[in-house]
């Protein structure tokens, strides 16, 4: 089942999607492009997982979607952050920074200890 994925991975994916939407509303393909670009092509989103995440986030009320016409006149679904989504993202980011700083500290300490 889709929901059986590890929470960390799922939480991270959700955070990336929300982050991608932080500046402006975007459609699904735009989000993959944005993440790929920002991560210098390190993160290649498995596209099969993007759409479930978008529907899940919308159901949770963190993002909303509406149909718009693109610059070259095609219909596409645009996603944008809702105020709860914005709050949620800020919390997640703060938590992530705290965690990654902690992990970096631990990794750094191990290196020093190993070198002595």
């Amino acid at each position: 089942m889709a929901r059986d994925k590890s929470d960390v991975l799922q939480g991270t994916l959700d955070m990336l999607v929300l982050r991608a939407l932080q500046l402006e509303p975007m459609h699904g393909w735009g989000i993959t492009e944005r993440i790929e670009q920002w991560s210098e092509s390190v993160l290649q989103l498995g596209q099969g997982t993007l759409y479930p995440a978008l529907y899940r986030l919308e159901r949770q009320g963190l993002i909303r979607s509406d149909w718009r016409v693109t610059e070259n006149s095609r219909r596409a679904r645009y996603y944008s952050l809702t105020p709860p989504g914005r709050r949620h993202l800020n919390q997640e980011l703060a938590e992530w920074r705290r965690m990654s700083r902690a992990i970096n500290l631990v990794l750094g300490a191990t290196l020093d200890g190993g070198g002595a």
Partner: protein
Amino acid sequence: MGRLIEGWRRLRSLRRRNELESGLDVEIRFHIDRQTEKNVRAGMEPVEARRQALIKFGGVARARESTRDEFRLGSIEDFVRDLRYGGRALLRAPGFAVVATLTLALGIGATTAMFSVVNAILLRPLPYPDQDRLVELVHEAPGLGIPRLLASPAIYFAYRDHSRAFESVGLWDWDSSPVTVTGSGEPEAVPSVEVTHEVLPILGGDPIAGRGFTEADDLPGSVPTAIISYGYWQRHFGGVDPLTQTLVVDGIARQVIGVLPQAFRFFDYPADIFYPRQPVRATAAFPSFDGRGIARVKPGVTLRDANADVARMIPLLMEEFGQPGARWGDAQFGPNLRWLKDSVVGNLGDTLWLLMGTIGLLLAIACANVSNLVLVRTQARRPELAIRSALGAGSTAIARVVFTESALLGLAGGVAGVAVAYLCLPLLLSLGGRDLPQIMTVAIDRTVLLVTLGTSVLATLVFALIPVLHFGLSRLQLADALPRGGRWIAGGQHGNRARHLLLVAQVALALVLLIGSGLMIRTFVTLRHVDAGFRDPDQVLTFQLAIPTAAAPEAGRTGLPTPEQALRMRQSILERLAAVPGVESAGFSGFNDGLPLDGDGRSSYVYAEGTAAADGVASPRELQFVSPHFFETLRTRLIAGRTFDWTDVYQSRRVALVSENLARAEWGSAGAALGKRIGPGRTDPWSEVVGVMEDVHHHGLNLPAPETAIFPVVPSDTASFVIRSDRVGTTGFLDDLRNAVWSVNASLSPAGVQTLGDLYHRSMARTSMTLQLLAITGTMALVLGLIGVYGIVSYAISQRRREIGIRLALGARHGEVRRMFVRQALALVGAGVAIGLGAAAGLTRLMKSQLFGVSPLDPWTHLSVALVLLAAAALASYLSARRASALDPVDVLRGE
């Protein structure tokens, strides 16, 4: 809250499902197109660009599928699907579904019906305003061992004058009921109550037309008035303006001043005429307890406060109304007020809660039975469940399958249970009969239905618990699903353990109920063997005959007889009655409470001349005033001396009869009583004891016969006639009796016709209600238990067919195989019996108040019932083993 919102969004997404599906398709197509465009820009061939885009997307179908998972209805949709699935599965096993539903319906229905009785009588308030502030004025005299003394005019006056706790005090009695209404058509005996002006307002009986009684109506010599019931207004006056009417009540013309509301009930008494009690202060005396007192306490006053207030007033009462010369200190008169509700319900609460508990046990047994059925059925579905498990269903999913099916059964059982309750209720009420206070109407209302719903849910949880735990927790292996050796491997030791546990519980519960029934049977038999002091009561017809009288100066004016003339009239009536063909003997007793077991009576102080008690305090004794031939009609035995004749009556001879126990208490033996003298006190004349009668039970077969003093009848308005004939109950007999009465005076009307047998049976009504209900539930429990035993044996055999076949092939005898299964079943039953005996030892103590002549722990009952249950279980398991073990080993082994 968040879950709720998410659930709502899911629901909404269900409705928008098609839109979402097509939207998703558009979105994915757009995504791939953009990727293709990007690839083309990067210099790929269009075909290759699209192929790469698809590869990068990583499976359109999979993405669509897992996205769809997100907007599916999730748990709700799963639940609906489970329900549909469970329903279909049940329909495929109609036998199982029907048996389980019926068993549950029986348990739930019986619980519902019993609860509707408990709810109406014990839980709902009385239909009076401020009913939680109404008390009955009851007193006690622990010094005399009397817990319940009623009220009197003296008590009424004293409490009305001095009380601080009471808002209002009233006095009523029905000693003159029924009154005779004459003047329009045939004379009519009408149930009546005499009340002081406070009584009806206390009970919220405000007239819908006219006015209520006032203090002026209570003054002797005021214009005679009456208030009538709504029903009587309709019946008697046909709805014409009642306030213009006059009723001739016992010869007195009474102005109708009011009509009570249709819904008003005077407790359980179907009184139609209420008239002023008019107590007289000058003649009021204490102690006397010949009326019923009712009071409304002020808001916030507790029963303890009210009792304290009464205790404060008793010295004032004695000071004003106490009879001079008597030493009442030793009697320790004190208050023993009761809330009106408790007074109406009496000790019925014990009985009803006992029966409710009994039915609860039955429900538990029914649950155990259904639990067992679900276990067996789920065992049989094990291969199917194992396949589901192998296909990825988690253990919760398996548990959900089992639980959904149980929930459906519980629902069906609950619905069918309500139907069963509607069928059972009339039966239950007919068992309870006149013992149940009719004032509180028993009905299956919203409260009862809510409790039924709760019961069904609880029952479902209980019976589903073991199967769900069992199958939810156990690891189903794919191997379980595979045919092995030509047949499905079914069950395991765990399943058997659960089933054995249930059987033990069932047997234990059934034993408790059966022991309860056994104790009630012994109580009933003991009561039947109590010598009531009269014989063949079914051949004695009784009725009340009121003859309105007036004192000598008024008698001439009103045309009414004087009391003495009325007495002679009764003698003539008695002679005519005795002359009716088929009548063996006839007599009467004075007043309307002179029959044994009629639920009423009168008592007073009776002393033996020359004994020490005459100066001090004694218990009141039962008083009776009887005509000649009264005891001959009842076939009460004369122990010594003689009974009365008419000369005793008319010459007002100072003679008396005493009961044997009174004679023994005062003079040591029946013979010694003859020629001794008894009397009500030192100042009154003594009466010579001319005969000693056998003891008669006046207040119930389970209560000791009271010491009774019997005097010749004195003039009174009412009397109870007794007529012995083998024609009692045949057609035409009552008409012959009526004609005999009318041949003397055409304006008289016999009232309250019933046999002495009716009184006798009514006095055992509660015992027989308890007995019958316990017997019914006990029998059902036994049957369910035996079905359980039968089932467990045949199931064990079906599981071990191969083993049996091998044993038989190796030379074991059928008898040995059978014995093996019987032995195993009996080990379980034995465990159940042992636990049941222990539980019964604790629980039967709760029914102590229902028992008579047998101890709750009566070892004979406990052990014999246990043996009977063991024997029945042995038989059931033997029959099951014989049917199932009659296997041909060749067939069995070839079949494998």
